[in-house]
């Protein structure tokens, strides 16, 4: 039985890995978070700054958990800037998990949206034939490619990298590559995490082809446990009912791909 914490526990950062010039992975010891289901998240407290919902990254060591962060705003930059020996608070794990189907599956990640998909890859079934599509802006910003190949070395798999400027892998967007792939290959499921506009396109594509699809969503989160209401989308709470939703629900959503909420709760267009 998974133990769920609602109070932050303090963890010391043991290792920092530079993934790209703007992305780092920080590693802590936490046997509970180390073993969470693919897609689950934790609330990560950066003392004195903020507390952020973060998907829990895999590590290659037992008993360790990790978070992969891109420096962007004040809070994510503060998390990115933390050094070995400094402390964060973690509570969780929260949220649901990907439903890993048998057969041929494709994981489509944009940027740090790859984090829950790497755990999905680790939890994949022996029978799965896995394609990972990684999207980034340029060669400098490609990460997890080697890790993905290592995790999947015993399974039938391929890792396809796309860059928007064409400096590495295939030029363009992951959505373009996915569109080509689904024309030639019959997939049993598509899993995606990344910018919502990207996920919206992927869900539409999957739905139009009748392929099972799940997306992991991000919304303004305060409590992480379904009481503050700030992450609501239509009638669901992304923290409590998600963060993973399937294509059927997402197709019926008025908000997915169109709007998100500001800190005050006002709906804003993407």
């Amino acid at each position, binding site marked *: 039985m998974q133990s769920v914490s609602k109070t932050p526990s303090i963890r010391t950062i043991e290792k920092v890995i530079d993934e790209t010039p703007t992305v780092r992975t920080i590693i802590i010891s936490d046997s509970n978070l180390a073993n969470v289901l693919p897609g689950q998240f934790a609330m990560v407290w950066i003392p004195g700054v903020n507390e952020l919902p973060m998907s829990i990254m895999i590590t290659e060591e037992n008993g360790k958990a990790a978070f992969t962060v891109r420096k962007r705003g004040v809070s994510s930059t503060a998390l990115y800037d933390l050094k070995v020996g400094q402390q964060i608070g973690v509570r969780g794990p929260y949220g649901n998990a990907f439903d890993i189907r048998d057969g041929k599956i494709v994981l489509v990640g944009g940027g740090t949206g790859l984090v829950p998909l790497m755990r999905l890859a680790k939890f994949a079934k022996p029978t799965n034939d896995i394609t990972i599509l990684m999207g980034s802006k340029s060669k400098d910003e490609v990460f997890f490619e080697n890790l993905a190949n290592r995790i999947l070395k015993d399974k039938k798999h391929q890792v396809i990298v796309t860059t928007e400027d064409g400096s590495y892998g295939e030029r363009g967007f992951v959505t373009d590559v996915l569109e080509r792939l689904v024309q030639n290959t019959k997939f049993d499921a598509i899993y995606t995490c990344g910018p919502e506009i990207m996920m919206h396109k992927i869900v539409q594509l999957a739905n139009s082809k009748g392929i099972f699809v799940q997306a992991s969503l991000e919304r303004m989160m*305060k409590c992480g446990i379904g009481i503050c*209401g*700030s992450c*609501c989308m239509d009638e669901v709470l992304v923290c409590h009912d998600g963060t993973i939703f399937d294509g059927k629900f997402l197709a019926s959503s008025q908000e997915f791909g169109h709007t998100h909420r500001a800190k*005050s709760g006002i709906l804003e267009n993407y």
Partner: protein
Amino acid sequence: MTPDLSVSIGPIKFGRPAMLASGILGISLEVFNRIYRSGAGAVVSKSLSKEPWEGYPNPTIVGIKGGYLNAVGLSNPGAPYFANMIKSNKDVPIIVSLVGSIEDEFEFMVQQFEGCNVAAYELNLSCPHVEKVGLEVGDDPKLVTKIVSRVKSVAKAPVIGKVGLGTTNYLDTVKAAIDGGADAITAINTLRAMGIDVETQRPILSHKIGGLSGPAIKPVAVRCVYEITSKYDIPVIGCGGVSTWEDALEFIFAGASAIQVGSAIGDGWIDVFGNINDGIANYMKKKEYSKISEMVGLAKRF
């Protein structure tokens, strides 16, 4: 015979006894619909201010032994936005919670809801962690009377004052609300509280001091409901630590006409409303009560 779970709170009537407390899940009409379908008698919105408020940085809500600490900072989209959102509401009894520091703000906000289906207004006289509003208003009985009477003069729906424990005797705040013409009282809000992380030696909430909710405050809230209904002839909605049907009945026996549920949603999710309804209905069958009103204040016989 199926027991009647409807409740009357002065002029306000609801089909079921437990409503969603303010501050919880309160910013989307679709979510209100879901909570109502799950068995709530009514939903109270987040406290709305004249302008949108962003609230405080996280951590704003953390679990502790016995409940939760929160200092969300009354984040809300503002009364005009919210009023526009609920204009299409037909079915859900929505109690609009309002927060402000002067009578004019409250009047402005009530005006926004003309044309909306509002079951009642609940005036937040008790939030313990935002300056110049909430508890700081509740601690000034003269201001409470002025605000309540101004809202009463412009609102078509009944007016509820939500009181908490501040520096002024809360019974004086209740009296001030009654003097202003309040139709009912909600008691209580969270209690001013804090938690400190021992490893980092830091207050956990970004605002340092927040409000304590959940099972830890239930006996305090039950006491307040008992005292208010013993001293004044005004209907009271009990709020504070209700998570089971037994908790709900405890408030009703103390004198509450209905109850509100907040933190319990963090543990039992919105199934809590259906569980409370079923538990109360079974109890009423067993003890042969036909209406909830027959049970209000029964503990006062002793």
